[in-house]
């Protein structure tokens, strides 16, 4: 049995722990981002100073300009946009099909959920190396358009799209579909003209999530686009080979889509974002 005094002491300690944890979270989230932003606007020579400067002494926009002026960087930005858009559209289309079947039949539901968890068991490296060989034999390995990578990303994102859409297809009352049957609509037409429009909010969510999945994906991009790089592998090479300024500017630009989603769109998307987390 706790005496009141002891309970108060425990409460005090817990409260202190909470404050410390909150401070830690704020620092862990903001300080690194500040340092990245600082590096992106300071000349490289100053970034290499020792001990490191915590505030920029000189400001420059050269790194951001180089992202759009240097051919390699500009084409990587465009390629990443294209790959992410194409893969999001394909994954959402196929994911919508799978989610609809999952919402209407228990067999499809079992197949859907087990394929979703089965995909998670495949290590990227075990797929990507042989996949490169297969893509090369079809002639879409490391193309300037990045179409091969877009297709791979689409396959990776189908589970995310399906899980995002599943709940909204389940929520559509069967009476609506039955009414359409009686009016003579075919199942495909019901899907296209009734179910999809009703699920349009989730479709937008799925498109955004699949876009971000592809935009952030590093492993397959590194192995499949060896010379025509997308942003994540390009950032890797810039970081490892010491181009601090452009790397920081690139990293800041890369953060924009995902951070917008989490900060601006808020809680409804957060759960979905974690559903699709994969390496």
């Amino acid at each position, binding site marked *: 049995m706790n005496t009141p005094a002891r309970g108060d002491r425990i409460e005090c300690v817990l409260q202190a722990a909470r404050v410390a944890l909150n401070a830690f979270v704020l620092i862990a989230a903001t300080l690194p981002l500040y340092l990245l932003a600082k590096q992106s606007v300071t000349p490289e020579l100053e970034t290499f100073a020792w001990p490191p400067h915590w505030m920029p002494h000189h400001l420059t926009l050269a790194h951001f300009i180089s992202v759009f002026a240097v051919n390699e960087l500009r084409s990587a930005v465009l390629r990443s946009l294209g790959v992410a858009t194409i893969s999001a559209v394909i994954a959402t289309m196929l994911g919508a099909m799978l989610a609809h079947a999952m919402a209407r039949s228990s067999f499809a539901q079992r197949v859907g959920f087990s394929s979703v968890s089965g995909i998670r068991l495949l290590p990227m*490296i075990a797929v990507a190396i042989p996949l490169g060989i297969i893509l090369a034999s079809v002639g879409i390995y490391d193309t300037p358009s990045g179409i091969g990578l877009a297709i791979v990303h689409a396959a990776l994102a189908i589970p995310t799209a399906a899980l995002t859409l599943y709940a909204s297809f389940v929520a559509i009352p069967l009476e609506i579909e039955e009414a359409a049957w009686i009016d003579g609509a075919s199942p495909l037409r019901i899907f296209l003209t009734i179910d999809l429009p009703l699920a349009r909010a989730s479709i937008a969510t799925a498109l955004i999530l699949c876009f971000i999945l592809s935009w952030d994906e590093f492993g397959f991009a590194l192995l499949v686009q060896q010379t025509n790089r997308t942003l994540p592998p390009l950032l890797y090479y810039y*970081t490892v080979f010491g181009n*601090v300024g452009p790397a920081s500017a690139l990293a800041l630009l890369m953060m924009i889509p995902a951070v917008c989603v989490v900060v601006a769109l808020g809680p409804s998307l957060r759960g979905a974002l974690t559903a699709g987390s994969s390496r």
Partner: protein
Amino acid sequence: MRLHRIRSRSTAVNAAARRLRTVFVVVPCIFMIAMLVLPALNGLVLSFDHDGPSLANYRILFHDSMFLRALANNLLVPFGSVVVEFILGLALALTLTARRNRSALIETAAILPFAIPEIVILTLARYIFMPRGYLNGAIATAGMPALPWLSPRSPLAMLTVIVVDAWHVTPVVMLMLMAGLQTIPDELYEAARLDGAGTFATFRFVTLPMLMPAIVGALILRGIDALRIFSTVLVLTGPEGVPVLSTYSYSLWDDAQKPHEAMAASMILALMVTMIGFGGLLLARRFSREEGALA
């Protein structure tokens, strides 16, 4: 007569609906299998090919000390990472769901590291932990000796990799546990309070048992993901600093130009993930049947 027409039409429509459902399941699944499963199977076949079918690729691996280190690290690093993520994630989930402490700002800040692309987090971590990075800068300013956070083959580098890996994904664990915490009915806390339970007793006998399904789920999902660790090691230390199976396989393929040995190494990783993953899923299923409460 009219009723009969409707009914026969509805069975026809049912058949059509079933056909459509079959197509809707088969097309996406074939796409995923063709792009992800078939390459892995192809890799499995090629891993047994060493100028003809043989086990030579695997035999070579087990004579390579780098491979053995990668194998050991591939258990140590994910284990450490999951432990750190879990402790931090649970602490964050408990603080953020405590009623008096709810704060949208802190919550957004806590989720932010996951919203940032992994490669950006790693770029940042490299600038922080490199020999002349910000962390050593801060240490030097405080007048203490700098530490080699990323020095190859050191336990310290392994610790750095674990911390950075956990930094990025702790928010996932936190969100999963928060979702679990929100399903615990307030009445249980009320009852515990009326029975005179203190903070720790409430946590031990109400929160923890009710949260168990979410904990098991989070540990399995994160465990599977953590085993596949690749980019954290590659960006922070290079493939040889703290080798894990993925980076070892990558450097065999990319630097050493030995694709078949690379595939053998990646197949061992695949076997490891599958075994641990299935073991975890079976355990979770048994657990959820006993508890009857896993979502």
